[in-house]
């Protein structure tokens, strides 16, 4: 199964990719002009709240949905003109599982190998290899209905990599997994990259994007609102983040701090006011004085480095955590 891998240039390149869903009553622009470039061997994180267009973009790149307009090349093949070539070079792990409860793990893997063109003995050998790599040997001949969530997800990944694809698409690979299974999945994904696979994953977990992705893009309402490494994106937030908890009077606090020149940006959510400042250590005493002057008392005040959540909040005006919850 040695497929020619394009050695130079990006593995995924899209230009003004769009998808509109039409129903009888309305038209929804799910993806509204996405430009992406994912390099070979990268783990690329695609981040966004539910309904932002993550899965739609992913499904287009995996040949499951035809783009309404725009161009894309995936693993060196043109998405619109050579979908069959794209399919030979990519793997896709859907969000909601991909196995039949009455089939065994081995049965699914052997069939998958054969659908990618392997003969019976190659398929059996490759299935055994994948089962070993994903530590599913003990459960190989049980039906998948007996598998735990983490095992099922590992099998789903196994099904996506039987043919050693150049690019692997993972749709929310760890949603619904317990922390242990999640950490394990992260290890598997890093191993794939180490083996030269380009990984494109969607997630709405910021920790996941932070821990795993070499580069990431944030999509909101069908458009990319930020792109870069996690550090680059955090640096864009600039300076430090101060969070103030004030019982009840968040609007008042917001108003007061916004008047201060050293406060670059302030938002509030659920009784927590977040401020973006250039130098946190000098801002905190000043803020305490401002609150005092307004007759407000903070029940807590904390200083921290910007997280991806701050990036997201600044780009979209919403907290991703709330969306994900």
């Amino acid at each position: 199964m040695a497929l020619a891998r394009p050695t130079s240039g990006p593995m995924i390149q899209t230009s003004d990719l769009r998808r509109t869903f039409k129903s009888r009553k309305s038209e929804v622009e799910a993806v509204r002009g996405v430009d992406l470039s994912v390099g070979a061997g990268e783990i690329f994180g695609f981040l966004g709240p539910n309904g932002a267009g993550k899965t739609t973009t992913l499904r287009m790149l995996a040949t499951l949905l035809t783009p309404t307009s725009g161009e894309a090349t995936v693993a060196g093949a043109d998405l619109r003109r050579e979908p069959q070539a794209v399919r030979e070079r990519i793997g896709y792990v859907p969000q909601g599982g991909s196995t039949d409860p009455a089939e065994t793990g081995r049965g699914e893997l052997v069939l998958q190998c054969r659908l990618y063109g392997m003969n019976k003995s190659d398929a059996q050998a490759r299935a055994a290899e994948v089962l070993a790599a994903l530590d599913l040997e003990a459960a190989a001949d049980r039906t998948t209905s007996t598998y735990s969530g983490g095992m099922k997800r590992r099998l789903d990944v196994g099904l996506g990599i039987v043919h050693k694809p150049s690019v692997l698409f993972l749709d929310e690979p760890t949603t619904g997994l317990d922390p242990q299974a999640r950490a394990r999945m992260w290890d598997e994904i890093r191993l794939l990259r180490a083996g030269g696979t380009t990984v494109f994953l969607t997630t709405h977990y910021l920790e996941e994007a932070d821990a795993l992705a070499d580069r990431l893009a944030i999509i909101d309402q069908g458009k990319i609102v930020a792109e870069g490494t996690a550090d680059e994106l955090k640096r864009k937030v600039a300076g430090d983040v101060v969070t103030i908890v004030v019982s009840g009077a968040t609007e008042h606090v917001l108003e007061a701090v916004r008047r201060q020149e050293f406060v670059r940006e302030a938002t509030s959510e659920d009784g927590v006011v977040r401020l973006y400042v250039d130098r946190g250590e000098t801002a905190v005493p000043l803020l305490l004085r401002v609150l005092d002057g307004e007759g407000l008392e903070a029940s807590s005040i904390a200083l921290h480095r910007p997280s991806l959540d701050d990036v997201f909040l600044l780009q979209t005006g919403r907290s991703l955590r709330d969306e994900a919850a």
Partner: protein
Amino acid sequence: MKTIRDTWLIFHRSLILTLRQPTWVVFGMMLPVLYLVLFGPLLEGAVKQAGAGTNAFNWFVPGLIIQIAIFGTAFGGFGLIAELRNGVVERMRVTPMSRASMLLGRSLRDVVVLMFQALIMILLAIPFGLVIQPGSIVAVLALLVLIGLSVAPLSYAGGLMLKSEDAFAPVVNSIAMPLLLLSGILLPMALAPDWLKFLSNINPLTHAVNAARALFNADWGNPDIAIGVTISTIFAVIAVWVGSRAFTRAVA
């Protein structure tokens, strides 16, 4: 070549999964068997009166087999909806496999299950008085291939379209029931008023039933056979075409 290979792979997998959970195979035979045991003997007298044939079971069992054929294959889409939900269909659509094979493999599985059910039905009916030659059994099974391929692909196309069992079951029932009743499987259409006879005549299934009856009686010269086989072939070709298209275009 690729289509044949992929069709075999999907056929093989589907058949194994069906054999692992044979509930549907047994369940699909329940109603026809009840008809055979509880209604067949009643019919003996009625058939003689109508003069439709000399042997009630040679007249009645072909109709029951068509009933198995319709209900057995019309609910193929039901299983497909489950496969859509558990992500198996989508997983296969991302592979370079032949799109038509997704349909053909499953449809051929349905045909094989159907042939097995029909054979059981024929064997069960012999103690009741069915008289049949081995040649007739082979010919009837061949006719069932055509009928199965006329119905199963449409059922899969319907499953892809409706995507929900709750929507699918009533649609299938409301199409299959009138077609079956109009095909004269329960009582001879000779007893029907003219308007009912007319509807029965334009029902393609009627001709499949007539052909099956002629085949059961080894009445090889009967023109019903040629008519039924021709109509069934046309429908099978159309159904396979429609079903393959649905799989090629489906956004599951």
